[in-house]
């Protein structure tokens, strides 16, 4: 165990080399996650959140490639590891949960097979003790009659139950970090609340850090310790959750917060950020948000440097809100 943060992503760039050109899906993104900490990674659809998560696990498929940056996990730069060593970390020390629980479990394999293989991929335990750990993990995520459930197939479960199973699989090896890629988006609101609550509880109990990817700021408000905002593949700003929500400095974060319905006045039309997300293919230098930004000046055609306006807060903008 090293003294630094659990995960430090530094200047990460992940590009797709397509026939139409280079898509800079992640372009210079940095953040840290401390041990047992919950970081919310926020941004609109297509802003590169999932690709950031996949980069950390080394799961980027061609034509995509991590072209630059360091991903330091517990003192080791993952990008320098050979594939076998990286595989030893996946599902063992860093686990991931996906957005759509209907798609993440293999439809033709029983639940016990899918959990046991995750255990046995990382330790030479017998099938019996792997099964015992699988059972324990199911109980932890609130699944009743786990023995019966272990012998079932995914199609015999509802969406919420499947997501619980996926979470159980993520937890089963006792990881230090879980990357949760919008795990509640596909579920209805009551189930969303339950899963969110249980996830938070389980992680706090076991001291597991969470990188919670979402486009929903209201989820982050109740869950995260820190927030990192992305726009069009680029880092926008980061800081403690209360600071960012109360006093966003970047015009984009401000727009995001203002468009959360609960914060609007009743009876007023919903506010939204004008304009559209730019195409990542044609994106040149400079602030990608400037076309939609009311504070933009000609200076924004250059890329602003990341500054530290106050301790623990980082920002990439020439014209922070006051």
């Amino acid at each position, binding site marked *: 165990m090293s003294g630094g943060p659990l995960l430090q992503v530094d200047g990460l760039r992940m590009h797709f080399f397509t026939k139409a050109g280079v898509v800079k899906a992640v372009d210079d993104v940095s953040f840290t996650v401390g041990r047992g900490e919950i970081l919310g990674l926020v941004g609109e659809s297509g802003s590169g959140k999932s690709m950031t998560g996949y980069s950390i696990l080394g799961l980027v498929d061609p034509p995509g490639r991590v072209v630059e940056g360091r991903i330091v996990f517990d003192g080791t730069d993952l990008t320098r590891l050979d594939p076998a060593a990286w595989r030893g970390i996946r599902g063992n020390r860093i686990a991931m949960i996906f957005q759509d629980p209907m798609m993440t479990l*293999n*439809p*033709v394999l029983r639940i016990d097979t899918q959990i046991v*293989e995750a255990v046995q*991929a990382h330790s030479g335990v017998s099938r019996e003790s792997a099964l015992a750990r699988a059972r324990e993990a199911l109980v932890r995520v609130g699944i009743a009659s786990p023995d019966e459930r272990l012998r079932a197939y995914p199609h015999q479960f509802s969406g919420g139950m499947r997501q619980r199973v996926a979470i159980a699989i993520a937890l089963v090896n006792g990881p230090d970090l879980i990357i949760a890629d919008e795990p509640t988006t596909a579920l209805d609101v009551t189930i969303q609340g339950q899963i969110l609550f249980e996830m938070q509880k389980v992680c706090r109990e076991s001291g597991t850090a969470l990188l919670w990817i979402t486009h929903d700021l209201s989820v982050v408000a109740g869950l995260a310790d820190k927030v990192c905002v992305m726009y069009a593949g680029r880092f926008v700003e980061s800081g403690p959750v209360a600071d960012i929500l109360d006093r966003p400095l970047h015009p984009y974060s401000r727009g995001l917060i203002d468009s959360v319905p609960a914060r609007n006045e009743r009876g007023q039309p919903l506010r939204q950020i004008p304009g559209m997300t730019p195409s990542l293919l044609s994106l040149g230098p400079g602030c990608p948000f400037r076309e939609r930004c009311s504070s933009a000046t000609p200076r924004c055609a250059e890329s602003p440097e990341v500054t530290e306006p106050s301790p623990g807060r980082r920002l990439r903008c020439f014209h922070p809100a006051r």
Partner: protein
Amino acid sequence: MLAYAIRRFGQSVFVLVLMSFLVFIGVYAIGDPIELLVNPQADEVERVRAAAALGLDRPFLAQYWVFLKGAASGDLGRSFVYNEPALTLILDKLPATIELAFVAMVMAIGLGIPLGLLAGLKPDSFIGRAIMAGSILGFSLPTFWVGLVLIMVFSVQLGWLPSNGRGETMMVAGLPVSFLTADGLAHLAMPAVNLALFKLSLLIRLTRAGTREAVLQDYVKFARAKGLSQGRVIGVHVLKNILIPIVTVIGLELGSVIAFAIVTESIFAWPGSGKLLIDSINQLDRPVIVAYLLVIVTLFIVINFVVDVLYSLLDPRVRLGGAAASH
């Protein structure tokens, strides 16, 4: 499961009766077998006597009724030409065809699935493209042409392989088979390759398409995120899913490979049932034609049943008999 089997059996009997009726009409429409069977110089009395002996003097529906009654007790009639039970004639020849078809299918499966997986996992690599190019050739070259080229190269020019017959056979469970003797294998090699080529190409394409689709699925990414080895991700998570359509197609193709081995059998003079069918059609030997088609349809039905059972074993979402999944 039992109810399902009974229902399937009922459907099958219906298909068989309908089929035999259609074939009866078909052969009846083509011409009068008496013309071919009786010496052209024979007089009218002789003709009438021959027709009566074969039951061909009766009205069409009466003839069909006689056939149905016989079929119900397992008698599919006697060949007009050989004056032997049609079923015996066919069952004599069928094992050779089935052996050829099975060996061809095993070759197609054993090569097709691994090559298709490889091409699906590395679609842009040289090897992936080469496999696809090969499968296009296998698809588009006509079977008889490939057969002739094989004979020209391996029998005529190189003299490595015999060009006709079954070679030395060995008795297994009362049936002669070629694949257990060296000479038999040498005889089997070219016809089997010839027959397998098209199916091989089909399986390569099917497996490749399935693989390309499966590797994009979330469950594959999730399996990798669990830290599973590449071998387990491909061999279990991908393969088990793509096997579902592949098994279906293999089942269907197995039937058609038996039914349509005719071209290959003719080229390599393989003594199977295909040649018997061609001869019988030429001579309007109706009992043999009908019996042959009934046997083939029965084979199809049995294979389809086996495929359905396999399918339900592979895919937990499918339950035979259509019982809904519990929640």
